[in-house]
């Protein structure tokens, strides 16, 4: 792959990482720790929202984030012709 293409591929990868890790940080450190008191004023079913994020929601989000990453990167690999097939 040419130098320019490689740079472009890497930049796109870094952009995905920034977005996904931003969400990762927001749900775990934001919703579950820093803003937990404010979110606890909101009730969803039998849960206070902040507590739900801290003990359930953040874990679901983590799993989803990885699978989104897998999907995005597989597409990106194909687009730049660097996939393994």
């Amino acid at each position, binding site marked *: *792959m040419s130098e320019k293409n*490689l740079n472009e*591929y*890497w930049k796109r*990868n870094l952009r995905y*990482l920034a977005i*996904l*890790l931003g969400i*990762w940080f927001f749900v*775990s*450190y934001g919703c*579950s*720790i*820093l803003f*937990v*008191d404010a979110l*606890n004023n909101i009730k*969803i*079913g*039998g*849960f*206070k929202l*902040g*507590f*739900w994020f*801290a*003990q*359930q929601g*953040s*874990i*679901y989000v*983590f*799993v989803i*984030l*990885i*699978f989104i*990453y*897998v999907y995005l*990167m*597989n597409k990106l*690999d194909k687009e730049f*012709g*660097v*996939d*393994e097939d």
Partner: protein
Amino acid sequence: MDTQIWTYIIVGATFALYVAVAIWARAGSTKEFYVAGGGVHPIANGMATAADWMSAASFISMAGLISFMGYQGAQYLMGWTGGYVLLALLLAPYLRKFGKFTVPDFIGERYYSQTARIVAVICALFVSFTYVVGQMKGVGVAFSKFLNVPFEWGVIIGVGIVFFYAVLGGMKGITYTQVAQFCVLIFAYLVPAIFISIIMVGTPIPQLGLGGNLEDGTSLLLKLDELSRELGFKEYTTSHNGKVDLFFVTAALMLGTAGLPHVIVRFFTVPKVRDARKSAGWALLFIALLYTTAPAVAAFARTNLINTVKNKEYAAVPSWFKSWEQTGLLKFEDKNGDGKIQYYNDKNAEYVMSVARPNGWNGNELTVDKDIIVLANPEIADLPAWVIALVVAGGLAAALSTAAGLLLVISTSVSHDLLKKWLMPDISPKKELGAARISIAFAVIIAGYFGINPPGFVAQVVAWAFGLAAASFFPAIILGIFSKRMNMQGAISGMVVGLVFTGAYIIYFKYGGGQPEDYLFGISPEGIGTVGMLLNTTVALVISRLTPAPPEEVQDLVENIRIPKDAGDAVAH
């Protein structure tokens, strides 16, 4: 049939299964021994990673910890899962592309330095040993409690089983045994949780049951907040302590998870870069099954426990109470001699003055060990004997699978990183395999010995293992992938600063008489790895800019691991 017989049958059957799997999956080459031949299916690898990851602490202790910590327990729930996002996005695919056997391999080659490799090997050995001894102790406890085997024999039986399949099969045997162990442990964790959820809140899904309503129509969590207040404890669902420490501990656990050698090495076992990414997703999904159930188990058990004992006549307690008293995990002392159980927070001065004293209570009369929450849960909920036996088998599966993964890292570090890459570079592949088998045999025996006579530092697994992994490996690997300019000087000085700072802080506050009032910014030793990681990164970046760039071929290596194409096999070179 009684519990004892059920336990013998189920534990015996699972052990037979592990041995059978091990014989089927013997290793014939160093590559099979170190990385299972690099041909493990991503879903199987996900299961193996999950079993490798979830230790006796996750299975037995975590729900209990949450039960007594309430909201604050989130530090373990998020800390021990969130690291997989970092692994999947920042480490696993690139290390798979790099295609060597171990973490010290990567550090040594990327930083073209034998010193860096040796620092990495020593860290890997220390972290893994701290971790594995705790598992062996867990195996001994499980045997001595449930099978009436003396503690030492419990450890020896556990060691014998691990010895058999680890020495015979190496990574290949361990991986496929771990797949079986995952199935056993997750089944054993979910069955009682589902039963209890149905009994208490009428839904078979514990994750939803946590937010469900009790029989009388009140919400479970609301009820639990109310019960906690009544007994002078803090509300279950709200945050009380400082957020700074919670933040740093959670971060240290996440960063540490992503830096633990026995977790990272799992991603060398899959065929392709694509599979390494996917495999991390599957692993976290399987881990999440247990980790989202644990807070439900914690809340159910806490409610049950309080309702069973709150101001009840001691003479009228159910039989499980008496049987757990014999184990010493549950202690009742009738301090005011009224024949009733007073369980409350006697550290809460205001509560003592306004409620306890006027009622004639002379202090909290019930001491509950946190491990009882998972172990006694089936009995508290009156579930059949086979469920209790299943929990024992699950706890053993969790401890054995983690121990095996760690022992493999230890033996690989010795035979590959120390012998092949340093002391005896001319060793033949056949001899290297022999050395790997011998060193894993030694590692198993030493771990067993320390399981019976645990050294003092082992009790601090969380502080040591996660703190050091976060402060040393994590930044060194990340910078090695994402900063082409990072060089030997930067990486080594970063690791040394991170290690010394974190180690000194842990030693001072855990063994040197340091008091919690003196914590730096209120950060406990469990969370200091985060600060160590930041220091390491800063030092590494600054020093690397002041010293020459890494050689051309190393920069090419970094370019190469950034794209998946032509990953090839994990090669012995």
